[in-house]
Every structure is written in C-alpha cells, then in structure tokens.
C-alpha cells in the first residue's frame, strides 16, 4: 500500500508503514530533484513510478541513507536512514539499475560477500548464498564468474544478492533493464514471489508502467520531483472508472447524447462516431445515462464499465500536476 501527501493521521491509518516521507526535499547543486515529497509505503510490493529524471534513483539513495535530505523527514522501517544508516541498511536489500557486480568473481562468492557485509557470519553466508541463487534459478550456475553470464542471469544475481541476508525491505532499481520479454516475465514473477511469499516488502523503481501494474500492490508516482499520485493500485484505478457507451447512429447522435449528459451534470466525451465515454463518478450515473438515452431516442448497442489502466492514471496525474 502507498499513500501520497501523508499526514500524521495518515500514518496512524496505515498499519506498519515501511517508509514514511514527509515534505522531503533534495537538491543537487541548484537543481531541485525532489520538492516537498510526502507519501507512506506499507507492506507488499510498491511501484515507484516516474519518467527518467523524475527523482526515483535519488529517492532510493535517500532511503539507503546515502544522501541527506535537504528538508523534511524520512523514516525507513521506523529509523532515520541518514542518522542511523548502518543500522537501517542492515535490514535493507538493494539491487541497482546498472551492472554493479565484479565480472571476474563467481556469483556465489559475490552473493556470499554481500551477505557477510550485512552481518551474516561466514558459514551462514555461504549457505544462504547458495540458497538465494537457487531461489532465483541460478543454482547450477552459481560458480560461474558473473562476467560470463547473460544479462538475464546477471539481473538474477543482483536480485539474489539483494535478498540473501533476508532483509525486511528490498529496493529494486529498474530490475528488468536489458531483459527480453520472456526474461522480463520471469523476473517479474520472481519479484512477486519475493514480495508475497518470502515475507519481504519490495519497492520497485521503474519507468515501465505495465511491469509495475503487473506486480505491484500500490504505487507512488513521481513527476518533476513531486508525488503526483499514490495509493493502492486498485483504489487509483477505481478512481478512473469509466462507462463506455456504444449507440446507434454516428457523430451527431453521439454529440446529442453528450449534450444531454452534460446538462445533467455528468462528464461525458464522444471519442468516436457512435461511442461516448462517461466518467463513472457515482452510481447514479447509470440512471442518468438511461434517462438521456430514453430522452434522445437513440438506440443502445452496448454499455460497459472500463477500469482505467495505470498508464491512464499516470498520464492524468501528470497532466493535473503540470496544470498546477
């Protein structure tokens, strides 16, 4: 779950928030990267959405305690990542966007090293490195140097090193970069498995809407350094529910019906000859459409409720933010 513009009351409402950001700001030199960002992230898989340059990677760096916020407060797992960085990072897993693993070292050695860096004793780290690599489907390949692996395998090694120490929160930055469609599906399935079966909460940073929509329970949408939308994915999509009405007749009939609906206080648009879209803002809209059809004498061919895609939610939120 995720909620934007968090207030103290919001925090009270969401049990066990994983991340709480209140009025967080960050500048790189004179360039503002994040401006007054507020949101709450709860358990499960949360997508951090935004175009390239929206501030996603900077935000992840701040969650890791690598950058100090210029303003506001940030809590990760109840702790301040900047002030208590090592303690917070012990409980986090992180897979960066780029290839970041030494190419001449075997996958098992890299993953074991990361486990030890997060505090696991050598013997435990060795065992868990094998377990993590088996979990991501690289059990047979674990002694191969990372540099000899395919892009998909390297992405899996990055996921394995992010979960090897059994963190409470895993931060994944563009985990499907460079993957073909089949590999992307496999990776998304793994992420879903990590977030839903292994007891770890996941923040998935991506600019690819469809993959966030596929695996996330909630989203936070960043645009130009501010949060333009956030919350449970189902709630956000429900907010954009529409009624698609196909009627007999062409543009004239559609325009006439749209006029009647608008007169009745319902937002409607003719999107094609014989097809209009009505915002499903309240249940009474069905009655208004029925009455308008009866008054205009236009025949109804089909009427279907349509749920907004994440892309539409994203575009609407971005447009609204730009308009302000």
């Amino acid at each position: 779950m995720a909620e934007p513009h968090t207030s103290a009351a919001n925090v009270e409402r969401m049990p066990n928030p994983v991340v709480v950001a209140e009025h967080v700001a960050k500048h790189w030199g004179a360039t503002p990267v994040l401006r007054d960002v507020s949101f709450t992230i709860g358990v499960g898989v949360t997508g951090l959405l935004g175009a390239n340059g929206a501030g996603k990677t900077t935000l992840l760096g701040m969650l890791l305690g690598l950058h100090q916020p210029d303003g506001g407060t940030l809590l990760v797992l109840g702790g301040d990542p900047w002030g208590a960085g090592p303690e917070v990072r012990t409980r986090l897993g992180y897979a960066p966007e780029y290839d970041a693993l030494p190419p001449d070292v075997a996958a098992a050695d890299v993953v074991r090293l990361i486990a030890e860096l997060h505090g696991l004793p050598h013997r435990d780290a060795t065992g868990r490195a094998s377990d993590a690599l088996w979990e991501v489907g690289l059990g047979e390949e674990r002694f191969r140097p990372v540099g000899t692996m395919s892009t998909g395998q390297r992405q899996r090694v990055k996921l394995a090193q992010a979960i090897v120490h059994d963190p409470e929160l895993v931060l994944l930055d563009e985990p499907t970069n460079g993957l073909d469609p089949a590999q992307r599906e496999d990776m998304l399935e793994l992420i879903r498995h990590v977030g839903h079966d292994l007891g770890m909460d996941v923040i998935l940073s991506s600019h690819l809407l469809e993959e966030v929509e596929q695996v996330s329970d909630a989203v936070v949408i960043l645009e130009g350094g501010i949060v333009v939308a956030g919350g449970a994915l189902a709630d956000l999509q429900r907010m954009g529910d529409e009624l698609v009405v196909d009627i007999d007749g062409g543009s004239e009939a559609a325009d006439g019906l749209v006029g009647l609906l608008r007169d009745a206080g319902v937002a409607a648009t003719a999107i094609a000859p014989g097809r209009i879209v009505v915002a499903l803002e309240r249940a009474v809209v069905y009655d208004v459409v029925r009455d308008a059809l009866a008054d205009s004498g236009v025949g109804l061919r089909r009427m279907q409720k349509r749920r907004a895609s994440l892309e539409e939610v994203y575009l609407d939120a971005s447009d609204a933010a730009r308009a302000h």
Partner: protein
Amino acid sequence: MPQAFGTRRPAGPSGEVAPEGAARILETGYRPYDGERLGPSHATWTLTRHTFQRILGLRRPARYKILPVLSVLIAYLPAIAFIGATALLPGARVRTAVPDPSAYFGFVTAALVLFATLAAPEALCPDKRSKFLGICLASPLTRTTYLIAKVGAVATAMLIVTLGPPLLLLTGEALQNDGPRGFGGFMQTLSQCVFAGLALAVMFTALALVAPSLTDRRAFASAGGILLVIGSAAVSNIMAFGLQLGDGWLLLGLDRLPFEVTARIFDRHGPPTPSGTPLPTFAVAGVAIAVTVVAAGITWWRVVGSEVTR
C-alpha cells in the same frame, strides 16, 4: 505509528509453522534467516579480507596472481638466497657479502614500488569501474569504514613485503649464529626491523592509494604510480645533482626517501649526497610524514568526500 524498529511481518509459505506434534517439511527452499547478525565492524573486516584476497589474486584466475607473486618473490628470494649461501658456503667472505637487515630494505623497496604501482590499484579501481562501490555502500558500511577496510587490506599486503623478508633474514642469521651480537642486539635489530617495516608499509600504503583514488582504471593508476616514482626521482636528482640547488631536494625523490627512512631507523646515514653531508634526520622524518599525510589526504578526499550519486 511507525513500525517498531526490529520487527517484521511474517514470511509467506516458507515461514509457516505446522501445529505442534504435526509432521513438518523442513526443507522448504529459501527460508527466513533468524541466526546471528554481526555489526558494521564485521562488514569492515569482511571487506578487508575480500580486498586482501583480490590484491593477492586469491580465488581468482592465474593471470591475476602473476604480479603479486612476482613482487613477493622479488622481496623474499634474495633473503632466502643469502641464508642458503651462508649455510652452504661457510666462510668469512660469504658472510661479509650478505647484507644485514637494515641494508636488505634496499631489495624490499624495489618489490614495494612494484607492488604499490601494479598490484595495489586492485583495491579501489574495480569497485569504481564496476560500480560495486554502490552496492558496498548499500550495506552497513559507510564511506569511512569502506576506506578503512581498503587501507587495512593494502597495508596488510604491504607488510608481507616490508616485514617478512628482513625478519626472515634476521632469523636465518640468528639460527646460524650470525647477525647481531647477543640477545640485546637481536632484540634491538628485531624492533628496528618491525618499526622500519611498519613505517614503509604506512608510507607506501598512502602512496599506493593516491592514483587509484583518482581514476577507475587500473592501467592508468599503475602508470600514474610509476610516473610519480620515476618523475619525483628525476626531478629531485636534477635539482640536487644537476642544478646543485641543495641536498634537501633529494628527499622529494620517492625512490630515495624509503632508503633514508629505514637508514635513520637503523641509526645510519642514507645514500651519498652531492655535498657529502648526510641529510638531517628531522628533515627525513618531516618529509616522510608530510608525503604520507598529503597522500592519505588526497585518498580521503576522493573516497570519503565524494558523493555517490548512483
């Protein structure tokens, strides 16, 4: 209220526990870890060990072992040869030809320069080039503990070259009833060997990390290190011997400074100067400390002071 620090939600299927007395499947694949978790000091030690292994080429293909092994051989082989010669060829002439531990640091310096310029860049460059630094800093390590781990690994590797061979030679001589006279003389030489070895290791560790802190390419770092040694030697010799601007210029030569430092620790004079007057000990100590501090400062500024933006 925010989640209490240290609590977590239960795992899914793999974390489920069957009712008491019921049969359980113990092997369920990936399981939550509820064992011991050690602190940031363990992370620092882990990175030190990992870096030390990388510098020496351990757990890596054979080609990565060539340079470190060559450096160690250059440092140890003469000591082994001298001990063997005195054991197999008894006689006063052979014994006078064998250097004492203080003079042996001349052999060590060549290996040190080789080690510092060719093997030590492995400590910093690959982390930056492969961006592994970002993953390291996403662990309980901080930039400071990261640098401490790297310095510890390089210094330990340096000690293999600076401390081992003179101690080997001293021990070999003592076993053959040669070397310093009496227990007191042995202990004095032993402490001088340890002090000189530590001083050289500290100075060369600081110098070895300067170039790698400025670039992410090993080849550039090695070339930069070699240029630093050769360039400083050329400049200092031209100033002192060619232009005769004073003996003090000799201390800027990184080829000469280690000899001067170890000679002073063994209460001797360094190599000859143009004027024939030995360089003052306080000047040698001052320049050695200044060079070490400046080199360490550059590395600190580059590693700890730089912002990791990705």
